[in-house]
């Protein structure tokens, strides 16, 4: 199989169009049993009662938020190094999904925090680094939005994303250390030591659903970015005429 064939926007566009519905379907297919297990099968937590069920959304979202940043930086870096337009478009398409995941993790976390800690927000290491991750996404998107020339936006965004990827672990550990230096036990997560097997299963299935959704959403977004940037190219014109 010739991979390079698909690195051109013109060939990738229809491919992405064909793949996206499948990933959406997979997301829906795993979300239904995942949510069922989470809300009806998994046992009630003996310490936190029903509110712990947020975990099935919260944790997959938190995982995705961090993972997507790395993938985004990877594509941006590839675009910068090899001048491949499609990889840069991939990076731009991933950013909003990543920010959304970060936001969901923060939102569900603080919804959960109110019953467990009695506050919407505490300055715990994990929460803080997640918040900074959100700012990093925003910075990336704001920079790209402020630049009109797409080629320049791609390159400048790539430099920033790479700088961010170097920084994310540094931020993560520095915040952790900052926190443990001051922090008493007030903010430790109270959870049962061993996770019930059904809980684990529910979480893994939900994680799969989040994966599928993220891929599908990014594919759709990359399609619209391709259309916008290549609207003068012959193939878009032909495609548009054909669609008419």
């Amino acid at each position: 199989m010739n991979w390079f064939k698909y690195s051109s926007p013109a060939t990738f566009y229809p491919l992405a169009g064909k793949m996206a519905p499948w990933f959406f379907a997979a997301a829906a297919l795993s979300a239904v049993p995942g949510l069922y297990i989470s809300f009806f099968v998994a046992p009630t937590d003996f310490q936190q009662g029903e509110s712990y069920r947020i975990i099935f959304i919260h944790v997959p979202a938190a995982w995705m938020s961090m993972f997507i940043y790395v993938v985004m930086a990877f594509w941006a870096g590839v675009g910068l190094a090899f001048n491949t337009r499609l990889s840069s478009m991939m990076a731009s398409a991933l950013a909003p999904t990543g920010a959304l995941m970060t936001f969901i993790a923060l939102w569900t976390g603080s919804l959960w925090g109110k019953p467990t800690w009695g506050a919407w927000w505490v300055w715990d290491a994990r929460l803080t680094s997640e918040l900074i991750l959100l700012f990093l996404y925003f910075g990336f998107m704001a920079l790209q939005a402020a630049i009109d020339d797409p080629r320049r936006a791609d390159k400048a965004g790539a430099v920033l994303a790479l700088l961010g990827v170097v920084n994310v672990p540094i931020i993560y550990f520095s915040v952790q250390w900052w926190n443990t230096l001051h922090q008493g036990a007030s903010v430790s997560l109270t959870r049962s030591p061993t996770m019930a097997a059904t809980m684990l299963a529910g979480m893994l299935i939900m994680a799969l659903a989040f994966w599928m959704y993220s891929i599908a959403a990014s594919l759709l977004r990359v399609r619209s970015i391709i259309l916008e940037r290549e609207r003068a190219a012959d193939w878009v014109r032909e495609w548009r005429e054909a669609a008419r």
Partner: protein
Amino acid sequence: MLAALRTVIRRDLLLAMRNKSDAANTLLFFVIVSSLFPLGVGPEPALLRTIAPGVVWVAALLASMLALARLFAADYADGTLEQLALAPQPLAAFVAAKILAHWLVSGLPLVLIAPLLGLQFDLSGTALLTLMASLLIGTPVLSLLGAVGAALTLGLRASGVLVPLIVLPLTVPVLVFGAGAVEAASSGLGAQAHLSLLGAFLLISAALSPWAAAVGIRIALE
């Protein structure tokens, strides 16, 4: 004349839209600055709750100043300000229109997002409401005062740093009463007195600032 003013407001809003990020950035700066404090100060919730009103207000102050420093700069550099000065309407009216547009784009969003930041610092419901009210009355004062600073430093190379420098001392009363209102509310006292004083500042500065800024601009153009 009203038509001309509407044109200025519409133009500035249009420019803000073209540069979609512009308004969002002030807001994000506000959010980031107030989130930096806990990192510097440490995560103790009780401590954070005590300093919250001050921190949020200082962050609002800094965010407004930043955006304001360049309020007239672009118009000055490209010659538009010269054209405004030669327009058949009084310059002060244009200045007022520009300030209004600027506040709509960068001040109002601060007011709207403030409760979220207050939640981060675990403020109570009344305190949150008072925070919004004090920002709603206070941020226009900041915009008005900042505009005067921006006009006086027009065309100077260092204006990015000069504006905060000459404006911040003027805004001290706003800060004191703004943060004071929130503190009063969260310790159960009424914030009425503080808020009325803020309102008085707003009236005074709305009456004086556009004229002062217009004079500053004419001086810079001469």
